[in-house]
């Protein structure tokens, strides 16, 4: 959709009546929200598809009139999961219809699409199949939003200015009925993600619009057309200068009747941040406690905006030519906090909350660390007479966000040495113990602004040997694979440097003198550098 399409959209808005809140109250809404970062072996994992889905799910259930029991969130699920959720909604909608209720289905997908099919992990769902499933849903209104590469293929022949080719509903003289399809990009475009905003451009702006940014009319309700227009403008603007080129969302509708569709009611909850008319115009970023941009609101001159954010603490930023205006607001439950300009202060660009450290952690990257550790077996003193407590020097190599977001694939090697004594009933033999370990680990981390806890599994190959002071005894060695668990926390000291403290618990298969397997623990600290 290009500028001409926008004109057609405005025209459509003029033609269509408002499907007001009174009617919205009688509309039984269902939602199937799907996000999957993985798209199979021939695609690179996305970083934010799951997060986008969660954000949309939250908005629909909090502001969009979708009850929790009618909402289905599928993150990292398969095509079968998606179809099962649609089937469940169909059954629920059929029952609602029998009760005489009007029904609507809101379908959202964020993830990979390639070769005419949605990619959900290793499974695929042809877009034509999805069309058929949506078409077959026994509801009055169907809204499908696809945020994926070349998703415009779904609406390729259905530009807003053209007659719908995917018409499945008979017309109704009064109420809005039919099918609406929004896609994040045209049929020949990629849909782009942004580390800066922590999501895809399209879903981010769609969500910001649904939170209130798109309420052009100022009536506290965001309609389908308003949301799309807002997302379109902001997505095109943000991606115009990107390396991948501008991204143009598309819109296809077949709403019969005289109703526009209210998607979210941002006034009803009376909760969030209020930008009064006198507030300066510009783009306001609202960053939540996790460092994510919860909303990006483009406020015009002389208009006000309600941003229906969930309760919590937010940092608000507005960018000027030579500085930032930043401030913090606490949104309590059921409270609409007015953002007065006096609550913002000047700040240099280096204090931009949108570019916090947490934001920089979201791309796939390598890090290298070095540190020291201490290792000891649990079964002292018998275990220590075999494997004495040992200091370790280690090097860690980690790859973050490669397999999936916040997963860290790690490799580490360590060497250590210590003096020990084999204190046995008939022999007391001092020895020098040496150890080399090479391991791989997979951990999940929860990035914070400064602290990042993590936990995961580790598999180590241990090579151990000891040389006795008494030359009468030969040197001994032992090797084994040792599975274990690892956990700890990372402290971000600077943009590229972090201090890591971690603990490990391992199982040590020892079977030379029969099966006398034991466990050992390890504490270590490393300094890591992110490339």
């Amino acid at each position, binding site marked *: 959709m290009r500028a001409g399409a926008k004109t057609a959209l405005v025209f459509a808005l003029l033609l269509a009546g408002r499907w007001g809140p009174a009617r919205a109250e009688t509309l039984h809404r269902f939602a199937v929200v799907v996000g999957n970062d993985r798209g199979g072996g021939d695609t690179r994992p996305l970083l934010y598809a799951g997060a986008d889905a969660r954000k949309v799910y939250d908005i629909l259930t909090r502001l969009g009139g979708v009850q929790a029991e009618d909402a289905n969130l599928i993150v990292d699920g398969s095509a079968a999961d998606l179809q099962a959720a649609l089937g469940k909604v169909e059954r629920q909608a059929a029952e609602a219809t029998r009760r005489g209720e009007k029904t609507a289905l809101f379908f959202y997908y964020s993830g990979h699409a390639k070769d005419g099919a949605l990619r959900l992990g290793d499974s695929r769902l042809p877009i034509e199949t999805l069309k058929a499933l949506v078409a077959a849903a026994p509801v009055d209104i169907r809204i499908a939003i696809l945020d994926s590469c070349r998703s415009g293929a779904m609406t390729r022949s259905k530009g807003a200015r053209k007659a719908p080719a995917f018409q499945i509903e008979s017309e109704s003289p009064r109420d809005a009925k039919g099918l609406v399809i929004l896609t994040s990009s045209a049929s020949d475009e990629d849909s782009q993600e942004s580390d800066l905003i922590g999501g895809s451009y399209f879903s981010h702006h769609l969500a910001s619009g649904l939170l209130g940014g798109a309420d052009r009319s100022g009536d506290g309700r965001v309609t389908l057309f308003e949301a799309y227009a807002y997302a379109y403008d902001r997505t095109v603007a943000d991606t115009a200068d990107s390396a991948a080129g501008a991204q143009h969302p598309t819109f296809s509708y077949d709403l019969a009747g005289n109703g526009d569709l209210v998607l979210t009611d941002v006034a009803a909850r009376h909760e969030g941040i209020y930008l009064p008319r006198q507030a300066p115009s510009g783009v306001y970023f609202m960053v939540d406690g996790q460092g994510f941009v919860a909303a990006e609101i483009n406020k015009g001159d002389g208009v006000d905006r309600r941003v229906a954010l969930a309760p919590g603490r937010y940092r608000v930023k507005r960018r000027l030519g030579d500085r930032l205006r930043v401030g913090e607001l606490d949104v309590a439950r059921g409270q609409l906090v007015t953002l007065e300009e006096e609550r913002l202060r000047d700040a240099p660009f280096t204090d931009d909350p949108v570019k916090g450290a947490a934001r920089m952690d979201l791309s796939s990257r390598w890090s290298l660390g070095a540190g020291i550790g201490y290792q000891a077996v649990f079964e002292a003193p018998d275990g220590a007479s075999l494997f004495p407590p040992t200091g370790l020097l280690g090097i860690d190599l980690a790859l973050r966000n490669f397999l999936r977001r916040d997963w860290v694939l790690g490799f580490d090697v360590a060497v250590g040495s210590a003096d020990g004594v084999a204190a*046995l009933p*008939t022999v007391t033999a001092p020895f020098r113990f040496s150890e080399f370990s090479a391991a791989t680990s997979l951990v999940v981390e929860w990035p914070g602004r400064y602290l990042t806890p993590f936990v995961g599994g580790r598999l180590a190959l241990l090579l151990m040997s000891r040389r006795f002071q008494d030359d009468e005894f030969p040197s001994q060695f032992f*090797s084994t694979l040792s599975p274990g668990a690892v956990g700890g926390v990372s402290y971000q000291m600077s943009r590229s440097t972090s201090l890591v403290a971690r603990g490990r618990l391992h199982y040590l298969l020892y079977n030379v003198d029969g099966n006398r397997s034991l466990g050992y623990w390890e504490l270590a600290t490393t300094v890591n550098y992110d490339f």
Partner: protein
Amino acid sequence: MIFNLTEGGSLPLAPPGPLSRVAAKPRRARLLIGLILGWMALGCGNYSNDDLEYMNAVPAGNQLVATLPAYSAALPVASEAELAQTTHSVTTQFNQMIDNTLGGLDTIRSYEPSSRTPTSRTWGPFASTNQVGWDWRLTVSHDDPQSTVFSYELDVENTADLAQGWLTFVTGSFDASEGVRKGTGSMTVTTDALTKAGFPFDQGTAPFDMLTVNYSTLSYPITVDMTIDRTADATNPVTSVVYSYLGQADASGQMSFTLTGNLVPGPAIETVAVVSAWLPTGAGEATETVEQGDGAGLVQTECWDASFAATYNSKPWMTSENVGQASACPSLPSFSN
């Protein structure tokens, strides 16, 4: 002096030789690497505390050797006192016997046991390098976990006649109550069964019928008693040799040596005993007594200084060799444990 039992050769306990190597094909090499990695992953190695205890049960030859101050370079051996020469000769024979008997057993310390059970470790079977066609194995047992006593047994087998089964060659035990190489032990070597089975001793025949060693390394003086029983033949009339060694930490010591056999032509069987003692400096005194047989009752006493030159000699049957006074003899400590 006397005769040389050490010419009988050593026990057939040479360690296993290196494995033969062939050029592995790449496919086999990959398979081999895979097997090695898998082996390593499942836990492998010789890392064992228990092995140390089993190894410790086998006596080390250098624990039991007799220590006698070396010859003085300033004094030609020919000028050495007669019984000092005897003491050196006997000590050398004694040490060679210890080395030949225990050296092979001692070798196993360098090797990981071939198999383990909760109460034993076994090295072998390995092919004997000196006796082609014969395998050997050594088993060390510790049947009572509450006890500090370990027993061991060396067996040999004729690979060309497996029906004979394993033949016991050496048996022994060690009470390791005081730690590494501290304890008391005994060992018996028998050759009768091996001789009957055609075991190829180095010199063609067994050097003895039975050799028994009892020793204690608990504290000084270290004691080692060795008894050799053999059948006299045309070249060697000796039927029994008994060594008794006591060694102190300061290198002083005593060696008793008793020889029995028809040493002097005639019907009588002679028993000759030599008791020799020495100081750390090398100065010492020896008494040779003909206890029975021809010449019974004869006693020779000889003393020597640190250079092993005679300072006193009383040889009743050869008075021309008498020298000095008894007062020239060194003052020796009591060698009792």
